């Protein structure tokens, strides 16, 4: 069964009656809970959330506006593999020295059955709660619940205070363990207007709203709140699958983004996110974004040498791209806002993604080219919600340069990427183009090239049983990019060839020639003269030969019978293989290879093999094409079957016999 995924805008609810439920009492357990042997709906679970409750509101205590989030959970742990649930780590964000998140009212208790059979309670010792100062942005509150045993129940609660109001507080209905009941209560003052989005496979069991009178006050003014309840029951564990895109795309959760609020000073409405026009305006004025894109004067002195002799716009753009690739090394931080600003990035040769790519845009503009910025969310960061503008979902920025009728997407953070090819982590649905001169718009982020490789083998069987000839390998698109990186792991080409030779004990490389290693836009070509240990001699009545001597697929990458989530295949791939075999006169073919032709529905891919014989020359070829970056869960069985058939095909040999 394939489940349907949705991203849903939660509308402002009509106020209905009274929301019941609410938090459950702390410090209580039942004997049923303690006696539970497994979770009936998922016998494989090592632990299950019995009850989980969260409540968020905005506090004005002490003349500070803070988000307050109360969290309370009770978890049943069935066995020692579930003990990880008892090691808790709460990340806390620091805006600066004065504004940071804190935890208060932390309490925890473990209920367990002791050796004698009587039930015991062990409280969390406050001395065993640690705070780790991770780096300048983050710290972690860490604690381990005491006295865990197979069968125990743990319960803890705390209050998080945060100066970050923008995203209110999101709530994950789903986690790595199943949840029997999870409920979230948001108290949103009428002066704040948030957009709420629900993601995932599962529906809310309860979603009610009610009005709370005079719940919020500041400076003597009062206003009402909406109390909104979101609840789910029996939420299955989130189980990651191989070849999966971001977990966030599928995890059942509710997210918030501040839309507007009423100013506490003058009562006027302040729009935070409303429409792209406002966002465009803000981004263009942003000190760490639009202002950086306009810093063309930084390149006045630098540029002439870079584009000297380049006459066409395309050549100039390529030269500038190469210049930025070489001149600013990315640090490990993603983001669409500059870390240090492009001036400092150019001086120190170091910056975050935005420093690098906004510098690229500024440099392109400085050369009179038309360059724009593209905001995007990387693959592991999840898909962007397009129901309404949510700027905080972006975590990356690239450049788009428009030359004549064509446009090119550029990421200068990787110096092995050819002009116009995006790294795989940027290929994620759509990005938002932000231009200094016109309104923003969506653009598809597709792999502009495939991952293409071709192997050509021309071999002759010698009397001594060895195959001699040439092996050629051509790589383009993502294959060339990845393969270049592999070669560059060695200090010299000779060291790469030596290692290749060593890795293939049956193949001796007699001579090698590698072309276009540094010409990133041309296919990478390798030609090797080789000698292959095939047989001990040619005095056999029969010789069987498997043409997949370089690599034979013997294991299916897809093993599950069905899947919940789409398969993230990366770039579309095309692999061609051609082998020409010259056999000695005394042999003729007894069992030829049967030609194969298989394809996926909707032109998703194919596998084709061919075999021809002429005199003593045998030609074998095969092509494997996988044309999509992502295969849906519905397409999964076909993909799995394709690989199964490939394995079957590749295990058959050609059999030669003596004439």
């Amino acid at each position, binding site marked *: 069964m394939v489940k349907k995924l949705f991203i849903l805008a939660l509308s402002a609810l009509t106020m209905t009656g009274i929301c019941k439920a609410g938090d459950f009492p702390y410090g209580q357990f039942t004997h049923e809970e303690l006696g539970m042997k497994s979770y009936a709906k998922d*016998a*494989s679970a090592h632990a299950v959330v019995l009850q989980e409750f969260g409540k968020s509101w905005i506090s004005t205590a002490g003349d500070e506006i803070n988000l307050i989030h109360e969290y309370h959970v009770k978890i049943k742990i*069935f*066995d*020692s*593999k579930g*003990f990880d649930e*008892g*090691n808790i780590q709460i990340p806390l964000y620091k805006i600066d020295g004065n504004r940071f998140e804190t935890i208060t009212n932390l309490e925890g208790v473990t209920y367990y059955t002791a*050796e*004698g059979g009587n039930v015991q309670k*062990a409280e969390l*010792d406050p001395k*065993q709660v*640690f705070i*780790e*100062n*991770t*780096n*300048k942005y983050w710290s972690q509150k860490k*604690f*381990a619940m*005491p*006295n865990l*045993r*197979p069968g125990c129940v743990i319960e803890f609660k705390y209050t998080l205070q945060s100066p970050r109001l923008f995203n209110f507080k999101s709530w994950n209905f789903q986690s790595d363990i199943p949840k029997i009941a999870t409920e979230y209560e948001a108290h949103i003052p009428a002066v704040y207007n948030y957009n709420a989005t629900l993601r995932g496979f599962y529906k809310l069991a309860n979603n009610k709203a009610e009005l709370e009178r005079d719940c919020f006050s500041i400076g003597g003014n009062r206003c009402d709140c909406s109390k909104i309840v979101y609840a789910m029951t029996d939420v299955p564990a989130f189980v990651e699958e191989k070849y999966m895109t971001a977990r966030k795309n599928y995890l059942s959760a509710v997210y918030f983004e501040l839309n507007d609020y009423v100013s506490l000073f003058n009562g006027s409405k302040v729009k935070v996110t409303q429409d792209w026009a406002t966002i465009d305006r803000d981004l263009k004025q942003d000190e760490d974004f639009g202002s950086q894109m306009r810093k063309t004067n930084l390149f006045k002195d630098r540029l002439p040498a870079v584009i000297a002799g380049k006459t066409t716009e395309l050549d100039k753009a390529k030269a500038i791209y190469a210049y930025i690739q*070489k001149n600013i*090394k990315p640090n490990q931080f993603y983001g669409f806002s500059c870390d240090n600003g492009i001036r400092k990035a150019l001086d*120190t*040769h*170091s910056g975050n993604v935005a420093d690098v790519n906004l510098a690229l845009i500024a440099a392109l503009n400085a050369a009179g080219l038309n360059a724009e910025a593209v905001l995007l969310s990387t693959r592991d960061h999840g898909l962007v919600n397009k129901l309404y503008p949510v700027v905080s979902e972006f975590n990356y920025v690239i450049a788009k340069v428009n030359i004549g009728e064509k446009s090119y997407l550029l990421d200068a953070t990787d110096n092995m990427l050819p002009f116009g090819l995006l790294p795989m982590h940027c290929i994620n649905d759509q990005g938002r183009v932000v231009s200094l001169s016109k309104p923003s718009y969506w653009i598809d982020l597709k792999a502009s090239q495939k991952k293409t490789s071709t192997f050509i083998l021309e071999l002759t069987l010698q009397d001594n049983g060895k195959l001699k000839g040439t092996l050629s390998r051509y790589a383009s698109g993502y294959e060339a990019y990845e393969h270049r990186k592999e070669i*560059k792991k*060695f*200090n010299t080409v000779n060291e790469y060839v030596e290692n290749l*030779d*060593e*890795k293939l*004990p*049956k193949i001796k490389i007699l001579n090698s020639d590698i072309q276009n290693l540094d010409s990133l836009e041309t296919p990478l070509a390798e030609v090797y003269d080789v000698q292959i240990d095939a047989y001990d001699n040619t005095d*056999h009545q*029969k010789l*069987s030969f*498997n043409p997949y001597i370089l690599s034979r697929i*013997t*294991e*299916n990458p897809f*093993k*599950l*019978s069905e899947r919940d989530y789409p398969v993230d295949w990366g770039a579309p791939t095309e692999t061609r293989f051609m082998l020409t075999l010259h056999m000695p006169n005394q042999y003729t073919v007894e*069992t*030829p290879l*049967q030609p194969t032709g298989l394809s996926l529905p909707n032109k998703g891919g194919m596998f084709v093999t061919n075999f021809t014989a002429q005199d003593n020359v045998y030609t074998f070829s095969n092509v494997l094409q996988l044309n999509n970056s992502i295969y849906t869960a519905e397409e999964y069985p076909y993909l799995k079957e394709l690989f199964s*058939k490939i*394995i*079957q*095909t590749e*295990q*058959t*040999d050609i*059999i030669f016999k003596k004439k």
Partner: protein
Amino acid sequence: MKLILSLLLLAALITPAAAQNNYEIAAIPKDLLPYASAVVRKMDERTEVKSLDNTVYHLKVAITILNDNGDDHAEIVVPYDKSNRIRYIKGVVYDEFGKPVTKFTDRNFSDESYADGFSLFTDNRLKHFRATSISYPFTIEYEVETTSKQSLNLGNWHPNPYTGTAVQSSTCQFVCKPDFNLHYKELNYPGKVAISTDASGMKVYTWSVSNLKAIRSEPYSPDYERYKTLVKFAPEKFYYEGYNGSYTNWNELGKWQYENLLRSRMALPTETEAYIKRLTDTIKTPKDKAKAIYEYMQHKTRYISVQVGIGGFQPFLAADVDRLSYGDCKALVNYTQALLKVANIESYYCIVQAGSHKKSLLTDFASMEQGNHIILCLPFKSDTTWLECTSQRIPFGFLGDFTDDRWVLACTPSGGKLMHTPRYTAEQNRQVCIANLTLKETGEIDGSMNTTFEGTQYENRNDDDRDDTERVKKLKEIYAINNLEIETLNYKRDKKTEPVNQENIRLNARDYASLSSGKYFVTVNLANRMRRPPREVRNRTTDVYINRGYTDIDEITYNVPAGLKMESRPLLVSITKPFGKFTATAVLNEKNQLVYKRKLQMIDGHYPKESYQELVDFFQAVVDADDYSAILAKAN
């Protein structure tokens, strides 16, 4: 006054001249370039024990990064904590001509916690900085000075720990008062230590190496301490976190630890003592009592690492573990020891270097920095038993491949004692798979596959899945059988000291055999195929080392449709080498059975480097045999 001024001026004049460097690339000897992505131009390390509670470490290093594979060397990481402080860090980046480009100091470093990946909490921190340059090669030179309020951990000198890095010159100096009586151990040091006395009467030891070529990684190489240059240091008298002590050998070091760090940590609440007494009163033999206590401890506790201050060496109190039911390896061993003591069972707290790669403590050199884990030894007469106390599931008396076959230090009331943990032999580490399958006309196979796991192979299957969906999912990843479906599955675990696990599966796999031109192609090795041999190594420098022996046996019977004959050459391989044996056969018998038998045995040990090519050829022969397809055709 005038004199002082001119001295200062003179000093100012001298300093740059003395700091004159030759970091241009052309000055690197050509024979240091092969396989190098970075070259250590000059590295000077100096450790000075000013007094037992004041050790100063000074490092000055210049390293040339030849290409971006050497970028890791431009990441400067300096760890520190409350008692190990950084006095200063400063450095300069030079271009390929040796001209200074940029400078950096402490202020450019970011401050981060030293997350070791397994601790709930540690108070170790680090300073981090990445030096960058847009063109290669470039050289970074930096200087670090740290002070440490102790003299127990004196570090070691390891001039070339990395692959792909050459060393032009590296020097280590150890400076101490003459009565400090430094103990040191040289490993593979080609020269002779120079000992002198400086102007202030301090004793100065100097070691140096030069022109070390870059090392390539070599598969199946022995522990680096067998072939790389290292000098290890140990004090005779020391101060550490409020403790004074002294030692000259393992016996004394073990005694010091026992008396200062361990002895007073074992008190238990009376209820727990009473419970242990009740638990063991009716059990007859000490070994069975110990087993009951061990299983009680496994059920009650879990592993959590918290490293603060002396906590790196000293276990939590047994009473704290009793109360919290968690602790790190030290705490859990100490707790188990305390519980055993209640039942009058003697046990030893043992320091071991843990990891699948076997590594012993140096038997002839005692120091605090060897070992990274604690296990417990029960010295029963002629039945020494070993316990791993951090796992809830490992059988009593079984160490697995984490701490087997190595020298460890037992800290006992009568002093430290070197002991050797059990070795699981190639014969003992067995995986035996017997399958009986039917090959149908369609190419489908079905039948049973029963596998036994013993010795360290006992751990090949997890013991913590709750239901079959989870287990089936994992087995599908383990077994490369095309279209594998598992119909039934069960495990029989015998958790004795030599544990055995038996896996019984009923399976089917559609299209397992390919049908082509009316013939069946059957990959006879069902599920234990070696994919590729290790890389060959030209000009190998290290001996061949097989860390742990094992034996894999597979006997697969395919009942095939009647009237088929074998068209491929029968499989018949048999190789015997000092390091291993391999046999594989596949024959079609008159009962219409295609019978495949394979035995691979690797024998642990060190072998001369010349035998490495033989090892590659051996594995290549295994790979080829594992790839074999039997071709079955209708007999005419």
